[in-house]
């Protein structure tokens, strides 16, 4: 009964730090990825060909960019549902100005529009303390509306050929430019999280908001920054998607934000915030991407694919709870 006795029991030394943030529950995903790869190779030996792998990477790039940003938002204790529609409005705006401002100008506009949308959401969340779920849901509607209004409700196919060639189909050292963009975003997010004050504050706010506040962290400023980062990534996503599809859709990739959310949780980032890393984001994205790739190969119909993805996400959420419970013990 005595509180004394529980205090005096020193916890056994932990060796977990050797592996960074990776615990035993986190090893399940790499195993799943290996299993999926094995299945894929058995069905289709060409799965391991450079061509197919590069193609897989290309398919994963938009999801990777979204998930990296979503991961940071979730680690900070927030949520961004507006990514897809921010991508849409950024893409439409950028492609519309491309004839006047050129490719560089268009790309800049896409990123700027994305950043501005993030600034808006972040400002509302930080200033009012409203739930990020509701704020970004409203931002989703607002940005979606602007995308539809700007594009007049129809896709814009008037995309310069040099632009789609450069971003969508050129390779540097054998790696497609869009994949390089995705990897660069991933690397930036990793560096921010690992080596800067920003990263530490992201974890601190997600782990215990009032502790961060009492410690002197400017929580409002960093909340805004987190959403600006997410918006900026949505803008970069717009660059990749418009170039790859040679069009600016007013409703582009509507499911991408939810898939990003799913892969972040699947990868093992706790939904309540404060933990996880880019390694988890990568695991989640690769698992989800491989899953649909393999299902395609086996010839499973799209309907059943949707079902499979849903089940995997359910599994991820249960794993998340399990991890939290074991962490509390």
């Amino acid at each position: 009964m005595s509180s004394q006795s529980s205090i005096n029991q020193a916890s056994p030394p932990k060796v977990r730090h050797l592996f960074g943030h990776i615990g035993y529950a986190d090893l399940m995903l790499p195993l799943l990825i290996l299993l999926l790869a094995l299945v894929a190779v058995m069905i289709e030996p060409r799965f391991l060909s450079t061509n197919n792998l590069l193609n897989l990477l290309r398919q994963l790039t938009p999801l990777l960019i979204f998930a990296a940003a979503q991961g940071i938002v979730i680690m900070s204790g927030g949520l961004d549902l507006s990514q897809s529609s921010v991508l849409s409005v950024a893409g439409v705006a950028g492609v519309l100005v491309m004839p006047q401002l050129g490719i560089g100008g268009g790309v800049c506009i896409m990123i700027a529009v994305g950043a501005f949308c993030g600034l808006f959401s972040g400002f509302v969340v930080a200033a009012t303390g409203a739930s990020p779920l509701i704020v970004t849901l409203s931002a989703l509607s607002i940005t979606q509306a602007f995308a539809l209004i700007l594009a007049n409700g129809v896709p814009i196919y008037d995309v310069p050929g040099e632009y789609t060639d450069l971003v969508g189909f050129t390779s540097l050292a054998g790696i497609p430019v869009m994949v390089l963009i995705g990897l660069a975003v991933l690397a930036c997010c990793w560096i921010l999280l690992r080596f800067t004050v920003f990263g530490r504050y992201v974890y601190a706010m997600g782990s215990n908001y009032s502790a961060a506040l009492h410690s002197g962290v400017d929580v409002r400023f960093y909340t805004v920054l987190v959403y600006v980062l997410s918006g900026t990534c949505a803008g970069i996503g717009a660059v990749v998607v418009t170039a790859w599809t040679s069009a600016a859709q007013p409703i582009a990739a509507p499911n991408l934000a939810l898939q990003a959310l799913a892969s972040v949780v699947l990868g093992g980032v706790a939904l309540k915030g404060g933990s996880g890393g880019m390694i988890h984001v990568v695991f989640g994205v690769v698992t989800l991407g491989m899953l649909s790739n393999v299902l395609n190969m086996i010839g499973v119909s799209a309907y059943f694919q949707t079902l499979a993805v849903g089940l995997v996400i359910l599994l991820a959420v249960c794993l998340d709870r399990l991890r939290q419970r074991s962490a509390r013990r």
Partner: protein
Amino acid sequence: MTPLLRLVDVSKSFGATRALRGVSIDIFPGEIHCIIGENGAGKSTLGRICGGFVRPDTGSFWYGGKEVPFFSPEEARAAGLAMVFQELSLAPDLSIQDNLFLGAEPTRNPLRVLRRSRERSECQSVLEAVGLGRIEIRQPVGQLPPGQQQLVEISKALARNPRILVLDEPSAMLSLAERKHLHGIVGELRANGTAIVFVTHHVSEVAELADRVTVLRNGALVESIAGRQTVDQIVERLGGGGIPAVQRPQRRVVQNPDNGTADLLSIVVPRLNGGTEAIRVAPGEVVGLYGVIGCGSERIASIVSGQASDAASVAMELEGQKIAVNTPVRARRLGIGHLPNGRAANGILPTRSISENLYLRPRSRKQRASLAPTGGDPDKELSEIGVRYGNAKDPITSLSGGNQQKVLIGRLLGSDLRLLLLEEPTAGIDIAAKADVHNLLRKCTGKGWGILLVSSDLEEAIALSDRIHTMFDGQCVRTYSAPTTGDMSSISADVVGATHAKDREEVL
């Protein structure tokens, strides 16, 4: 010598509660200033005002000999003031190192890149100072035992090289050895000219450390004395003379514990200075647990109400049967009703009506068959328990705190229970409502229910209880049968560890 920090005639109210009334204190460099008082005396509020986390209603504030506006948290930090909080300000998922420098990273470059190696060496030296020299600094703080977390919290304040260090109940979570270490650190800081404000309710600590003692009672200053004091001198001022005599209500039916009836509840807790003590509640009895915050009575409450995950580790019997209550639902099935602490957070549904709040209780088989949203005649029940209200469909928040509390007790009264666990049943309600609540409780004991009362209101505990167990540091200090107001000073001394301290003095 001019005081470094000076609060003059400071008052602060939270709602209807007056936490501080016209308190003045002086804080000098190179001095340990202990602030002592019982629960609700205003100690923590005073500490928080120094740190800028609470803004007083009236009063003036002097820093370095000049009158300045009250600090904001940022200004307090800039002035070199560091605070150690009672509720820790640590992020559990962050490592020890990350927590230590949170908000005060030693980096100035524009990208704000962390300087981990520099942090690591500073971190090591600060942790060594608090006796955590061999700890792995990369492990998450949440995995440490509470005592070590407290030491990390203290290190965090030390890492900021404060001119004034405010410690709010720093030793509540610490073992004796850790406490000694803390006292050593505080002594060193004093020698280096740091001003230390030590908020505590442990008399022995005050006697050991203080260069100046401020005693608070009910938000008012009793005395501020310079120089070291003995345990007796402090206890005298703490409980001293000012306690008004309580009109003793008529004694309840006191059952003879030896008459053969099995106890409703028996729970074994360690006794101070070795051995164990069984806390027993017989039918129709009120048993009080009295102690300051962190004394362990909260834990007993969580075990009895089924909220402790390790309830099985405690020897608890219900009507002679060994039992571990592992969920609140099970507690309720066993006939244990619980009135939790914190009416607003854990009691009422603030957005719902009075009757919905009243009928938020498990339904009987018969009631379950009906689809009616409430289980009976709310007006009849509400008038029985003496709630003053307009319409049962009004929101519960339209009632005064006292009437809300009566509704919560009415919620329990309507169920078939054997044992009531009450935590602070009259916290923050006025005297008339308090008397009503006490009458309701006597009605319960009249029905043969037992009551386990956790109260930090000593007068109430004495007025209601057939027996009081005083608690300190997770242990039972002494047991008072049929307590009277004459026991007050002795009880007050028990719960601040004076008994403990004196025994130790004798041993030494």
